């Protein structure tokens, strides 16, 4: 019987939860491609292949108080932090009720204050210093809060990564830098993005520990993030964690990946699909029967169907509402 999760401090219930969230993220993601290819939603950016890293990390945090600053592939992470399928569908259809942006931003630009999912933008890596600022606030307020920020390996080459990581190192802030190294930045492979073996090799230069772990193993990710989060919460400072994953889809629905990687390479990577290996694990641990699996697929399909229908029919924000929320409107009324 598989027991690794117990050693990592995860209960059976946790593991089931993790698996269900991973599966949900994958099925939702797949649906979005279908909706895109059938012309119903204009754009998809996808997290397929990265769910284990996302969910392992999210479950290692205190989801009632910690902050996450996800990047555009983090469907799994935001689902774990409380965003609903319906909400994600509303974002994909760009409808008024979308809690991320009211349809203002492209899908994958997450943000939901009530769940401490910090609003993100398109320019990569700008969220890294924000995570550091949130950790600084936590330290000042003496609150046991951790912030976790994710980004791709390509994005780790932006100045903001360096400046943010160094700031956190100097001020020993409770922030975790989680790189989802999926081997490509759009078409540019890892060896044209960085010259060191690992992104985590950069940690030493910021006086923090660096880890490179198998991002296809949610339990390994959980364990690493949990330890780092505990240490950060106790004043031990930041950490840089690199998860090795593979982007199973093209960059986005606008990309054609055949111009820069072979079908064989992708096929080979699919043999390590984290969803498959984690399913095997959960089954091996006796926590998932074939029957329950079937039922789960049905529940998820229903949930996604319902969300799709709802989102498709939901109204857009009015054209003129584009004028709203440039500045604090309460103040403007006061002044007027």
């Amino acid at each position, binding site marked *: 019987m598989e027991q690794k999760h117990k050693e990592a401090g995860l209960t059976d219930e946790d593991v089931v939860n993790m698996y269900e969230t991973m599966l949900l993220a994958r099925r939702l993601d797949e649906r979005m491609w279908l909706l895109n290819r059938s012309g119903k939603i204009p754009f998809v950016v996808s997290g397929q292949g990265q769910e284990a890293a996302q969910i392992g990390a999210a479950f290692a945090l205190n989801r009632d108080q910690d902050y996450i600053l996800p990047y555009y592939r983090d469907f799994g992470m935001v689902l774990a932090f409380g965003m609903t399928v319906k909400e994600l569908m509303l974002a994909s259809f760009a409808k008024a009720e979308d809690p991320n942006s009211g349809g203002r931003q492209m899908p994958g630009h997450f943000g939901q204050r009530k769940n401490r999912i910090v609003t993100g933008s398109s320019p990569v890596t700008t969220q890294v210093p924000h995570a550091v600022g949130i950790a600084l606030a936590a330290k000042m307020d003496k609150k046991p809060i951790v912030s976790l920020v994710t980004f791709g390996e390509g994005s780790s080459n932006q*100045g903001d990564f360096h400046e943010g990581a160094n700031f956190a190192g100097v001020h020993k802030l409770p922030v975790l830098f989680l790189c989802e190294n999926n081997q490509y*930045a759009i*078409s540019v492979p890892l060896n044209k993005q960085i010259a060191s073996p690992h992104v985590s090799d950069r940690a030493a230069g910021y006086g923090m520990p660096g880890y490179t772990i198998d991002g296809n193993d949610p339990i390994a990710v959980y364990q690493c993030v949990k330890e780092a989060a505990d240490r950060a919460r106790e004043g031990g400072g930041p950490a840089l964690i690199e998860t090795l994953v593979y982007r199973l889809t093209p960059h986005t629905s606008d990309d054609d990946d055949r111009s820069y990687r072979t079908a064989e390479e992708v096929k080979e990577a699919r043999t390590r699909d984290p969803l498959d290996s984690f399913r095997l694990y959960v089954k091996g641990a006796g926590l998932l029967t074939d029957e329950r699996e079937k039922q789960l697929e049905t529940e998820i399909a229903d949930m996604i169907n319902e969300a799709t229908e709802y989102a498709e029919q939901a109204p857009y924000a009015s054209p003129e509402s584009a004028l709203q929320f440039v500045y604090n409107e309460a103040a403007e009324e006061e002044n007027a």
Partner: protein
Amino acid sequence: MAVISYIEAVTMALREEMERDPHVFILGEDVGKKGGVFKATDGLYAQFGEDRVLDTPLAESAIAGVAIGASMAGKRPVAEMQFADFIMPAVNQIISEAARIRYRSNNDWHCPIVIRAPYGGGIHGALYHSQSVEAIFANQPGLKIVMPSTPYDVKGLLKAAIRDEDPVLFFEHKKAYRSIKGEVPEDDYVLPIGKADVKRKGEDITVITYGLCVHFALQAAGKLAQEGIDTEVVDLRTVYPLDKETIIESASKTGKVLLITEDNKEGSVMSEVSAIIAEHCLFDLDAPIKRLAGPDVPAMPYALPMEKYFMMNPEKVEKAMRDLAEF
């Protein structure tokens, strides 16, 4: 003469310049193997090899800064910013460095780089894939900012930019990439940077604009002509530094001026155009200087209804022109 698209004119100009001058090279994100996310550099990697079509790490300040350094050592770099919106991390290199190198060194060093970037909306790109960013730079002596409207201008101006001895920002309207086509000679020609182009002569009203809006204005001018309203359409082409002469001449002639930009209104390059006219043509004016622009919100939203509300279009342009003519 072949009819080609706006983006094909970009590629053609790049190819010809690379063939002409071995010092010309391209650097940017995904410009090599993939040929650019819009395919502007399509085929160049195959033709010139990876030494001259460099896929860089994802870091715009380095792209600009490395280009600057290479240019000071005799190269002619053409850097691509994947979207104009992502030029922001490179602002320090562009403004503090590229724009000031000749001046601060008292003409000892100079910096012949081109930075290309697709800008503009209407392609469902939301806040960060739709912006017009020219106003951020259109106050920095030392820089030139070129924003062509037609394939013919694209080719001639991009070649001129690459041969220019000073840094040029070359913004390409991404909605024009495939929707705008036109005749482009196969042979080598350059167009002058710093000169506006009167795309249509007229006597009654003047429209001054650039980029995609030039086409909206020409379209509307055609319609208005049938009603006896004769429109002059001035295509700025270079939005910094401005071609004062052409602006003043046209404004003085018609006395009724409409300035159009897809950018937000307050602080756009059209403010400067208006100020030039207000300074030089006041007594020739028969109507207030009108500006038609995007609303003053950060950038256009993703959802279609809001995007349309923000984005310039032929109807908005036609209405504003008619209103002005009737003033």
